[in-house]
């Protein structure tokens, strides 16, 4: 019975990784860049919810909406100000290093505004959860909400990408930016939209992450960000179902290895898996083989 609880907890943590990984993978697929500040967007989202809930209105729903809107604006602005001017740069490293810079900037900005002390975050999910088998099997409300949220996000995202013309434009830009432009697709608008979606997802992931692990610090986004990046690479970067599967597998592996093997080794196991997958299948589970043009 306890195995089942761990499995569900893993699924829940994995869902959070998956939501973050979706942002990584979409931005990579369409803008062909790794936004290493993506994890810090989560942190910004958490602080926005925290501030609104503890000082202003106290309404969690308002907090989440505000976080989604602010993170969306942050993502779009970051892209316009920091990444877009470097899109034509001679080396793809320029934009990568800029992203790391943005990451440090956001972390230190939070440090300046909110201080280094760890704040406690009250869960956005008030529901206590369900218990089965006469109380033996207890599932927390936040766990269930997290899993359901990720399922809804995945479905909406797939509908958006495959059933709408903005989504088709994204696929077109992902495959051949030049050809898409020559077909009249506004590539800048498409990339902005991608950042907007990815950042909004980061805010939602932040709300869920801090509800499950309620301590708030300026660096809280860094580790989940890196693990979600691993999930995206593991699933095949650029692939949306890949990010989802990668996130879930990573979450389950992390929780199970923390429980049954060693809590100190669990991160090592997670990253070890990444190395093995990349050795066996360099493009990730669902990644496509990329052919160099000659």
């Amino acid at each position: 019975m306890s195995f089942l609880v761990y499995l569900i907890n893993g699924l829940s943590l994995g869902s959070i990784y998956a939501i973050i990984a979706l942002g990584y993978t979409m931005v990579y697929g369409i803008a062909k860049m790794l936004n290493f500040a993506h994890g810090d967007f989560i942190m910004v989202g958490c602080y926005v919810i925290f501030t609104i809930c503890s000082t202003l209105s106290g309404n969690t729903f308002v907090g989440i909406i505000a976080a989604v809107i602010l993170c969306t604006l942050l993502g779009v602005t970051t892209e316009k100000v920091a990444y877009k001017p470097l899109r034509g740069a001679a080396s793809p490293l320029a934009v990568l290093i800029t992203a790391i810079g943005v990451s440090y900037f956001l972390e230190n900005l939070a440090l300046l505004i909110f201080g280094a002390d760890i704040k406690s975050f009250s869960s956005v999910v008030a529901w206590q959860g369900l218990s089965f088998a006469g109380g033996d099997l207890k599932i927390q409300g936040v766990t269930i909400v997290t899993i359901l949220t990720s399922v809804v996000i995945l479905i909406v995202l797939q509908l958006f990408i495959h059933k709408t013309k903005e989504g088709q434009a994204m696929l077109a830009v992902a495959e051949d930016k030049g050809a898409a432009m020559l077909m009249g697709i506004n590539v800048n608008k498409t990339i902005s939209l991608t950042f907007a979606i990815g950042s909004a997802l980061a805010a939602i992931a932040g709300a869920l992450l801090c509800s499950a692990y309620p301590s708030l610090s300026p660096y809280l986004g860094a580790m989940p960000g890196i693990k979600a990046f691993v999930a995206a690479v593991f699933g095949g970067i650029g692939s949306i179902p890949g990010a989802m599967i990668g996130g879930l597998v990573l979450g389950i592996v992390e929780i199970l290895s923390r429980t049954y093997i060693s809590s100190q080794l669990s991160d090592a196991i997670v990253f070890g898996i990444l190395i093995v997958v990349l050795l066996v299948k360099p493009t990730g589970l669902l990644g496509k083989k990329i052919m160099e043009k000659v």
Partner: protein
Amino acid sequence: MALLQVNNLSIAFGGLRAVDDFSLEIEKGELYGLIGPNGAGKTTVFNLLTGVYKPNEGIIRLDGEDITRKNTIEINHAGIARTFQNIRLFHQMSVIDNVKVGLTERFKYSGIEGVLHVGRYKAMEKAMDEEAMKLLKVFGLDSERDVLASNLPYGKQRKLEIARAMATSPKLLLLDEPAAGMNPNETAELMETIALVRKEFNMTILLIEHDMKLVSGICEKLTVLNFGRVLKQGETKEVLDDPEVIKAYLGED
């Protein structure tokens, strides 16, 4: 007034003048050929016309409108569409979706309407599907509407690329070596397709081609480029019989 009017176009990459003092006039409804040996600057001219490169000098006018400094997207919206020497379809998308990408500018609805399937979404998607199917029928691709573009045979990929370009409802269609890599049967079929596009859409076409059978078979006028400069311009037959043109292609005795 000519549909496309190009005056004294030049571009240099470093010290190399890839296109030098290039002028061209194409009347509405004409089928115009741009030929020349490898490296003569033909594709560079296409890249200048579509805004991929910006010229150092010269003016490009489409239907009287100066498009010289416009970007790729604005030029497409102004009415120039193109295909590519090496086919650049969206290979991971279906045949009909490739065409619908070309249609996006003409059919408007918001992303929220799209996700929720409300508002203008259904009517617009239906209209896009119908428009796309109309185009696919013209090109004989309607039975392959849901096939992945990468799974089409080569000749049909070429046709799909032309269909996608036509979906942006251009005034001028640029075809970059449409017959490249085709066998004689496929080339003959392509010539029929191009004739069909002219007839169905009353389209003005500028094409780059090496296949002399195709060029002499369908082009009304030609411009020959050599080392980035115009070598000869005029009616097809007269250009192809010109001793200088023959020399540029075959070398001297």
